[in-house]
Structures are given as C-alpha cells and as structure tokens.
C-alpha cells in the first residue's frame, strides 16, 4: 500500500513553485470560455513563453472565473501581489497583454476589467473559492489552497458525531432546491442500521439554464470528493457514488481522474491517510432524463434501470440503493462541507440569513449585461444581483421578471426586486430557490410564452409513470399553445388553472407537482398578458361564458378543497430542479401560497369575463 500523501509538504512545495516566476498568467478554460476560444489563448501564451526566455511567465489553465459574458478571460498575477483581469481576449491580445506587463509593467487598459466592478467585489466565494484559481487537473493545486485539510482534520481529531455536529451548527440547507436541512438527513443515515450504507452526490443538473454543479465538478473536482468523504465518515458509509448527467463529459473525465489521483495518494480507498476509515467512490453517468434529479429516480438510474420515481416513504435513508440506507446530497451542498468542517459550523452560520445560511451559487443569464456564475451570501436582494452584480439590463431595456428554479420555479416581477434571495422569501413569491438558475427577462419577453416554454420542457421530461403528470402536462401545454397562438378563450385559462391544481396535487413526484409553477406564477403576476391574448377571441367564446358563470361556485369550491389536500403533497413541489435535497418534511407554505394566488386569479378571470 502506498504511503499517504503528506498534505503539508505538498502544499509547501506547491506554494514555493508558485513564486518561481515573477508572473503567472491564468487562463479560464471552463466550458463557456473554451467555447469562446480560450484554447487558442492558452496555445498562443504557451508558445510565446516557450519561445522567448525573457518572458518568465507560468501559464496556468484554470476553471471558471465567473464572468462568462466576457470570455475568454485571462488573469495576470504578479509575484508579491497585484492582479489584472482581462476579458474578451484573443490569442493576439493575450500576448500583447503579457508583453505589456512583463516588459513595461503597464496594463492594456482597453481590454482590462475593473477589479472593483460589483460583479467581482460583491461576491463571497466559498464553493467557488478555487474556481478560476486552481488548475483542476492537479491535486497539488487543490492541496495548496487548503484542500483535504478538513478531511485530515476530521479523520485525525474528530469522531463522526463531531463532524455531524459541525454540519448541524452550520444549519446548511440542501442546495438542490427544496432546502431541507442537510444535518437532518445526515443524522437519519448515521442512525440507520446496517453495515452497508451509501452516500450519493447528485450532479444531475437538469434545470436548463443552470450550470453551477457542472462548474464545481469540472473546476474543483477534489472538493466534491472531499465533501463526499466527510459525509461518508460522519454517517458510516463506505461506498459513494457521484451521479453526473451524460451531457457533462468533461465533469465525468475530471472526476474520474481526481478519484484515481486521490486513491493513489491514499485520500480515498482503503485506510484513508492511514486511519481506519475506508471509502470507495464511483462515478455513474445519466443518459438525459431530467426526472433523474429526483432522488428515487436517481437511485433507479444508478441501478441501471429506467429512471422512474417511486412513492416515499420509505425514504432513501431507510430503503435506498439496492435496499440499503442511502443519502443523496446535491453537489453544491457537499462542496460546502470541507469549508464547514475546516472552519467550523458557527463560521458558516454567520454568513447569510438566520434561516438560510451560507452562500448560494447562481447561474446568471438572460437579458442582462453580465452573465456568468456568481456566488453571493443568502439574503442578497434580487435588485443587487440584477442591477449591481449583473450590471443592469442589456441594451438599456426594462427589467420585467427574474425566473428562478427553472421548470419547477416561477417568475418574479419588478415590484419584488427588493426581496432577499433565500429559501423562504422566494417560496412566498410562488417561486423556489431551485438549484440556482437565474434568468433575467426584459420587457420584450411574453410571459405566456415563457410558461409554454417550461411546460414543453416538463411535458418532454415527464417519465410517464403517473397519469396526472404524463397526461396533465400534455393538456396544459396544449392549452398554453392555444392561448399563446391567440385562439384561447377565458374558459381555456380557467381549465388551465384547474388542471394546474390537479397536476400539482396528484402527481407522484416533484417533477409533476412543480410543473404547474411557471404557469401559476405567470398567471398570478402577469395575468393581463393572458387576458390580452384571450381578449382577441372573446366574441367567439361569449356563448360559453354564460354557462361558465353558473359553475363558477363549483370551481372555487374545488380550489378550496385542493388547498387542504396540499398540506400532504405540496411539500415535494420544489424539489425537482437537480438536487432533490430531501423534500421529506419540508413545509407546504409555498403551495398554499400558490393556491391562494390561483384562487385570486380565478376571480379576476370572472370579472374579466363580465367586462368582455
């Protein structure tokens, strides 16, 4: 058996190496920058540095620096301090920048990004601390930035219950969407009977427009491994899986390599760091199914079956993979664990708000100036994110709505821009935190079209197991199609609302339960847009309106009924996006909020009818 890695020595050596050259050039080589041409930048820099001895520069490929809209990005660091960040760099520009700094000690102003710009200054990076800083393919780089020190600390100075205690103190909630307290889940697994227990990292990031987990897995793979190892140590698991969607081949490749290297260094495998703790980690690959973000479907997929969810209970912590106790955590949740164990749960709990601690990574996209990945403390207002960090709307347009939570979430209109972004505030607005997709939309976007876009997604991704979701999403899409093409009637809108309630209340898993959310939230906040669309056909439909009026009371009765039944099922609604961080016992507050909303909008449909 190989000798374990000496973390301190490796870190020391790596830090020394860092200062061997007076300048270092870091090139963002993440997927977004790579698509924008960072490979050419990297090649040009390496070529010129190899050719000219005078250019004593170390060229380092790194992960995501965050500001994807300014890709490819290059950052020059000078020995002894001082860094300069450049955006929209080509190979030629990069060489020019390098020469200017090294030979004349002058920045190239026209390509330079202001380090004080809020996009950089307003972030607080825990999960993404190493993204854009380290070379993801080198374990030494991770170790030099404190990597695996939390694992070493836990294995040598803490018993499993101590690790769990720190997670409890941190009050971290699942980052996959629902926000279930991670420590509760960990305790359930730790208390579960049995010799074989599993821990699973959920990297099935299916929400279109979200790529936080991919960035974490690609740009800091060892952090995910360390988080998993700590989770396994605290809960008594000896086998872990990372479930990655197949659309992320690079994440799979990086994780595979990281696992091999960690094993070689005795950070995984048998008797980790010469302690009694052993853990094996395997990567499992999805094959394109959004529903596999739901934890029971994810487990079916790991077992090589169709990814269809099943009813809970039994919860995975009782009956999981191959019938054994299993805990599934989102990748971002696990990526927080090394910092929590290393720096203490109290430190983590001091960041963010009292109910939503820590930070959250968002993929900021849409009609906004700065798009990219950001990590901000929980409780940062939407206005700060959009106007400060995001740099405001693109092309001087007006902000209309922010969409969070993808196909399971909702649209938040301008009047709620000052809402702090945390689990409970977003829920009260009828949206969800989700996994972290944040799409900003300007006044050119038609909200019924947006609702239809998400419904098409849910329809395509419905696994077909339960009828409300399989048939309901098709019918809702049909109605939305009819409405958005101008052929809808007020009756269609009412049918749509009723169908939303049925699908939400009766679907088997989070995908179906949350599928109506984009419709309900746009109906609630942007009702007039639907009215405008059906207004065009009001003459044709007037005959049917009369009969509808008589059944109006029936309809409102139904929605009251559904409100009651929600208490039992509403809890899972928010869980789908990627993480499925246990919806086990979360509250039904958002669901009841929404039904009030639909009731209200139903009433306004009525009044609209009489006006027409």
């Amino acid at each position, binding site marked *: 058996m190989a000798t374990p890695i000496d973390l301190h020595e490796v870190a020391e050596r790596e830090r020394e190496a860092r200062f061997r050259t007076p300048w270092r050039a870091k090139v963002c080589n993440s997927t*977004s920058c790579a698509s924008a041409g960072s490979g050419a930048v990297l090649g040009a820099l390496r070529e010129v540095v190899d050719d000219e001895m005078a250019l004593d520069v170390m060229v380092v490929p790194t992960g995501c620096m965050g500001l994807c809209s300014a*890709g490819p990005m290059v950052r020059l660091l000078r020995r002894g301090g001082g860094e300069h960040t450049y955006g929209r760099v080509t190979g030629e520009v990069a060489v020019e920048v390098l020469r200017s700094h090294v030979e004349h000690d002058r920045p190239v102003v026209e390509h330079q990004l202001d380090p004080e710009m809020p996009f950089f200054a307003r972030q607080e990076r825990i999960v993404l601390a190493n993204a854009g800083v380290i070379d993801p393919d080198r374990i030494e780089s991770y170790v030099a930035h404190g990597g695996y020190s939390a694992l070493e600390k836990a294995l040598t100075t803490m018993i499993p219950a101590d690790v769990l205690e720190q997670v409890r103190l941190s009050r971290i909630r699942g980052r996959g969407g629902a926000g279930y307290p991670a420590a509760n889940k960990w305790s359930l697994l730790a208390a579960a009977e049995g010799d074989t227990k599993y821990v699973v990292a959920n990297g099935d990031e299916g929400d*279109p427009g979200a790529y936080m987990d991919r960035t974490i897995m690609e740009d800091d793979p060892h952090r995910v491994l360390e988080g998993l190892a700590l989770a396994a140590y605290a809960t008594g698991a000896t086998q872990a899986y990372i479930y990655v969607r197949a659309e992320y081949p690079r994440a799979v490749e990086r994780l595979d390599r990281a696992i091999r290297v960690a094993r070689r260094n005795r950070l995984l495998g048998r008797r980790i760091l010469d302690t009694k703790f052993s853990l094996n980690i395997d990567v499992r690959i999805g094959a*394109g199914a959004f529903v596999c973000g739901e934890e029971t479907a994810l487990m079916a997929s790991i077992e090589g079956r169709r*990814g269809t969810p099943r009813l809970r209970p039994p919860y995975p912590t009782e009956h999981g993979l191959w019938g054994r106790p299993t805990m599934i955590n989102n990748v971002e949740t696990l990526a927080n664990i090394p910092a929590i164990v290393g720096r203490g749960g109290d430190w983590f709990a001091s960041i963010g708000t009292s109910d939503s601690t820590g930070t959250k990574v968002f993929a900021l*996209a849409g009609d906004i100036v700065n798009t990219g990945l950001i990590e901000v403390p929980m409780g940062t207002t939407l206005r700060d994110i959009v106007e400060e960090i995001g740099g405001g709307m693109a092309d001087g347009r007006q902000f209309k709505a922010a969409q969070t939570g993808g196909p399971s979430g909702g649209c938040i209109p301008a009047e709620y821009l000052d809402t702090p972004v945390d689990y409970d505030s977003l829920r009260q607005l009828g949206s969800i935190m989700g996994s972290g997709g944040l799409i900003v939309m300007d006044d050119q*976007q038609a909200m019924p079209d947006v609702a239809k876009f998400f419904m098409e997604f849910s329809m395509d991704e419905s696994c077909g197991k339960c009828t409300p979701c399989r048939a309901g999403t098709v019918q809702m899409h049909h109605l939305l199609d009819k409405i958005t093409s101008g052929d809808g009637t007020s009756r269609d809108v009412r049918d749509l609302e009723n169908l939303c309630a049925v699908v939400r209340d009766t679907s088997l898993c989070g995908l179906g339960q949350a599928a109506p959310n984009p419709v309900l939230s746009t109906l609630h906040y942007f009702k007039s847009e639907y009215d405008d669309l059906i207004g065009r056909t009001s003459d044709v439909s007037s005959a049917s309106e009369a009969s509808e009026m008589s059944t109006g009371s029936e309809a409102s009765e139904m929605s009251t009924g559904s409100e009651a039944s929600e208490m039992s099922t509403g809890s899972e609604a928010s869980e789908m996006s990627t993480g499925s961080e246990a919806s086990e016992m979360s509250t039904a507050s958002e669901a009841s909020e929404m039904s009030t909303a639909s009731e209200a909008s139903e009433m306004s449909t009525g009044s609209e009818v009489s006006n027409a």
Partner: protein
Amino acid sequence: MSDTTASRHQSDTSTTATSDHRAHPSGDDRFELVDKHLRRVHYAQDQLIETLHVAQDVFGFLSEDLLLYVARALRLPPSMVYGVATFYHLFTFDPPGEHSCTVCTGTACYVKGADGIVAGVTEAYDVPSGRTSDDGRLTLKTARCLGSCGLAPVVVLDGTVLGHQDTASTLDRVAAALEGVG
C-alpha cells in the same frame, strides 16, 4: 434481422472468453470495444446504462442487433434493455447524418431566440428537430442547455460551438458545412 446479426448473436457468449488480440468472432471488431467494457465492469447488470453509452459511442447509434447483443451479454431480458434505452433521451436508434446541427434550447438561449433558429433550420432543410434529413446529410438536434449561457443563443455545428447566433447566421454556417463536403 440480417444474417450477419444472427451469427453475431451465436458467437457472443464465447467472445467473453476470447483474448484481446483475436479479431471479434462476429467479424466486426467494434464489438471487441464493447466486450472490453463489459469485462471491465464484470458483466454487472447495473452497468446497463454505461454499457449502452459505450455501445453508442462505438457504433454511433443503437441498432436492434446491438441492443440484443448487450441484453445477451448482461443476461437481461431484451425488453428491459429496450425499455431503458428508449427511456433516456441521449440514446439514438437511427444512424446519424453526415453533419449535425445542435441548437441549445436552454432557458437562456430560449430567451434570446433559439426557437426561431430551430424553426429556421427545420424549414430550410425540411428536417424536424431530433431527425435526420431524408438525404442523410443533416441531423438537427436540440439540447437542454449546453452551459454556455454567456454565449446565448448557442449552436453546435459538427462539434464546433458557435455563440451569439441568429437564424440567418446559423443557416449560413449550415450551408457552408454542407457545401464543404458536397
């Protein structure tokens, strides 16, 4: 099912024991790559999805023959293999066209007009999304977010990522790609 297929199936149980150096008994050496994966995972049935990935990587698509081959090797009912293969979006059962055009329809790209691009290509080449044109030259696909949201809308043409596209620019690039070979 063709005759060659039948012979492949007769031989597949014996292939598990053959050495790496011999040609595959089916006469198609590509099966050896699938076998290599199967040996590596010890023919574990829970490796079905991984095996299908490997098979599709090697052959380009999952033919009925190939699905049966995997079913035999993993001792799973063909119905289950077919069920799993058709459940997941990434598995494809038709040979891919000479060129492929993938339009990202993630939310960020949608907001910036990706659906117009899909419609444009569909109209110009008479190929619905997810299908290959009748002449086998172009496969049009959509993807659920390629994670390059900063470049939205994104189109991937024959593996090259093109950012900030619109319908006209995409059609130009597709036409150029098709002409380049024709």
